[in-house]
């Protein structure tokens, strides 16, 4: 096996440059099934890990009960009992308080939210006539709105309540483990940890918990839970016609996903799937051109600035960096208006008599697509120039020296030394950049807003990326269910691309190893 790979890479070195490219492209395509398989295996392994974890924990809990004394066994039912009885007062109080709060909350509110998650038998909001008021002999009756259930609220509280249950189970498990631990410690004649020890540990051996508690909680409440709820929304019919509290929505299973993949024309779903396909294709094309045009042109600019004998290096660099500093919404909005039908360029050309009609920079689909890529080059080159400059400086100078002695021309030096080194070092960056471009909201939204809006599905445009489409589906169309589906699709596309590229990268690396 090892022999084979060596001979392969030797073979590879003999290829000409275009053939190498195709070889690499072939490797990339070949890696796709393997990448997908590994993804499935990884998911399987993840669930297997979880299952094993539960088995292990359950076994330990049973053992603890069997071997436990009375105090340990009592703390199975009254949390913190063991801690209180064994001198860990603070811990005991916290455990007990948590149990009381949990039971009260779940009994009074929690179970109701969880039960309502089925969205069955909900109260709709109604307008009913209120108590009649008599003013000056005339009877007035004012209508009163009686608010019923709200799906969104149910989802949020329901998910939070479920999470609270999980949290309780985990705390209960910790409580059991600690009972076991302190029972063993006492049996060995040692003293279990007190509050003072806990505080000291928080600043020392357990410092990672102190440091990461706040960021993790922030991510949990502002990213994880909202994502869970949005994934749930993808399985409902939450849209402009079903907006709570006036119109409730309900579960629809996989209907929304079917609309993307089926080509039957029922309720305009064909327009939706066609549009989805087109926008996905354009998103990938855009990400490809946006990433690689910036990459190579930025490298070119950096090499020009860094070339020996070019003066004022700092000035060139500062001028380009300056353009990063100006907030994008100013520069992009201005450029967008610059090329508008009524904008400076068109008017100037019209008034000078060089053109008869305004050039449709943003209204012709193809031209608009070319324009956003060009303007993106304008936006991206300064960043790329900075990054490339950093990498170029690290290339050992003697590589070039010996190449020069061997009589390599500048272009050969570029192809044999600079480019492979750059690709080697910035490989992961290229991937993140590609994904960043797939989700490049600002450039598209501020330049064209997705226009021209000539996609089969209403409101979608020719320069729309999945991400800008998602935004407009949410804000303009209130089509939340479809927005959620598109969000999930973006996630899947990004995840698959990342996995494949990550799996491929070691092979690229071993081929381009530098000594």
């Amino acid at each position, binding site marked *: 096996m090892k022999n084979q790979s060596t001979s392969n890479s030797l073979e590879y070195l003999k290829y000409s440059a275009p053939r190498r490219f195709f070889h690499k492209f072939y490797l990339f395509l070949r890696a796709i099934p393997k990448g997908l398989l590994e993804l499935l295996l990884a998911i399987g392994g993840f669930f297997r890990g979880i299952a094993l974890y539960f088995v292990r924990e359950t076994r330990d809990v049973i053992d603890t009960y069997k071997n436990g004394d009375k105090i340990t066994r009592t703390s199975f039912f009254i949390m913190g009992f063991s801690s209180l009885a064994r001198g860990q007062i603070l811990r005991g109080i916290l455990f007990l308080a948590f149990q009381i709060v949990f039971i009260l909350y779940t009994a009074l509110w929690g179970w109701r939210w969880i039960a309502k998650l089925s969205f069955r038998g909900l109260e709709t909001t109604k307008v009913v006539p209120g108590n009649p008021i008599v003013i000056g002999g005339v009877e007035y009756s004012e209508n009163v709105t009686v608010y019923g259930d709200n799906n969104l609220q149910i989802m949020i509280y329901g998910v939070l309540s479920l999470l609270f249950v999980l949290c309780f189970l985990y705390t209960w498990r910790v409580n059991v483990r600690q009972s076991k631990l302190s029972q063993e410690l006492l049996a060995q004649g040692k003293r279990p940890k007190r509050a003072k020890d806990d505080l000291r540990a928080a600043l020392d051996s357990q410092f990672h918990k102190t440091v990461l508690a706040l960021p993790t909680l922030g991510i949990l409440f502002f990213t994880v839970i909202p994502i869970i709820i949005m994934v749930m929304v993808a399985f409902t019919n939450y849209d402009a016609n079903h907006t709570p509290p006036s119109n409730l929505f309900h579960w629809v299973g996989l209907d929304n996903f079917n609309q993307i993949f089926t080509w039957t024309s029922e309720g305009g779903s064909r327009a939706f799937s066609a549009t989805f396909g087109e926008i996905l294709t354009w998103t990938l094309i855009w990400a490809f051109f946006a990433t690689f045009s910036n990459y190579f042109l930025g490298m070119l600019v950096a090499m020009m600035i860094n070339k020996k004998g070019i003066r004022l290096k700092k000035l060139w660099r500062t001028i*380009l960096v300056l353009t990063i500093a100006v907030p994008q919404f100013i520069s992009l909005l201005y450029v967008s208006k610059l090329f508008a039908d009524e904008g400076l360029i068109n008017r100037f050309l019209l008034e000078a008599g060089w053109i008869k009609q305004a050039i449709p920079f943003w209204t012709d689909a193809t031209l608009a697509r070319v324009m956003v890529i060009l303007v993106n080059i304008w936006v991206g080159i300064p960043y790329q120039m900075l990054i490339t400059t950093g990498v170029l400086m690290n290339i050992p100078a003697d590589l070039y020296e010996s190449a020069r002695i061997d009589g390599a021309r500048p272009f050969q030096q570029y192809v044999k030394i600079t480019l492979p080194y750059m690709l080697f070092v910035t490989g992961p960056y290229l991937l993140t950049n590609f994904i960043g471009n797939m989700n490049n909201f600002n450039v598209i939204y501020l330049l064209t807003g997705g226009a021209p809006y000539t996609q089969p599905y209403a409101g979608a445009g020719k320069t729309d990326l999945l991400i800008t489409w998602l935004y407009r589906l949410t804000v303009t169309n209130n089509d939340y269910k479809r927005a959620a589906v598109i*969000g999930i699709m973006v996630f899947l596309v990004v995840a698959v691309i990342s996995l494949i590229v990550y799996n491929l990268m070691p092979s690229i690396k071993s081929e381009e190893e530098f000594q």
Partner: protein
Amino acid sequence: MGSAKTKKRAANAAIYALLIIICILWLIPFVLILLQSLRAEPYSGMSGYILPRIWGLKNYVYLFRETSFPVWYGNTLIIALASALLQTAMVMLTGYGLSRLRFKGRRFLMNAVLVLGMFPGFLTMIILYYVLKSAGMTQSGAVPGLILVYVASSGMGYYVAKGFLDTIPRSLDEAARVDGATKAQIFWRVTMPLSKPIIIYTLLTAFMAPFTDYIFASYIAFGEPSGYNVAVGLYSWLQKDMISSHFTAFCAGGVCVAVPVTLLFLLLQKYYVEGVTGGAVKG
């Protein structure tokens, strides 16, 4: 020999010419914005000429006297300052925890953040809006709401900070450990003083982000001008019904936003460049 020298000189001349063209191309839009903002003619929509026919500061006076621009600017500044400080704290805590501490679940946490990052950022917009609305933090209360949204999940952007912290030699920690320092003391007294470049980088990028954010800001402050930031406010002036009367004011507003931010950026350019290049090379 002589011909080689001439060749080289010609190549350099070509490069200079290209660089000059590039710089002009990159600067033109900003020069145009500045010139448009100095147009003092009665008509303040888009024009077909580059140099103003009447020069003057009319647009700037209008901007600060008669529009909500000062309010938007104040909102943006408050958001930018608060979120710069809090985000930096979050990012440094996360970066430190994941870079220099070893504990069970570290890999899981990093993978989880990686996977979460693959969801488009504002997929969850409606949920956050709903939650913030019930807490009274939308529309006119958008400023604290936006700060909360920016800061809460900012730990997810720990990569650059971690990349930097990874390069601080571990032997420093061990030496302090031998001297009896706790991990918290190492954090404060050893690592943080050495992290000045990355702290400044994080502060700078976090400060600049709210000036550009349109997505969340427009959704959370929806329809209530007193809660806008500059991006949302100025964007509203370029809509069909506003642009013919507010285009030059937009340009003036753009200049007012861009100048201080750019100056700050140029002042701290060194740190920015270090952060960007370091982050890219480590991936």
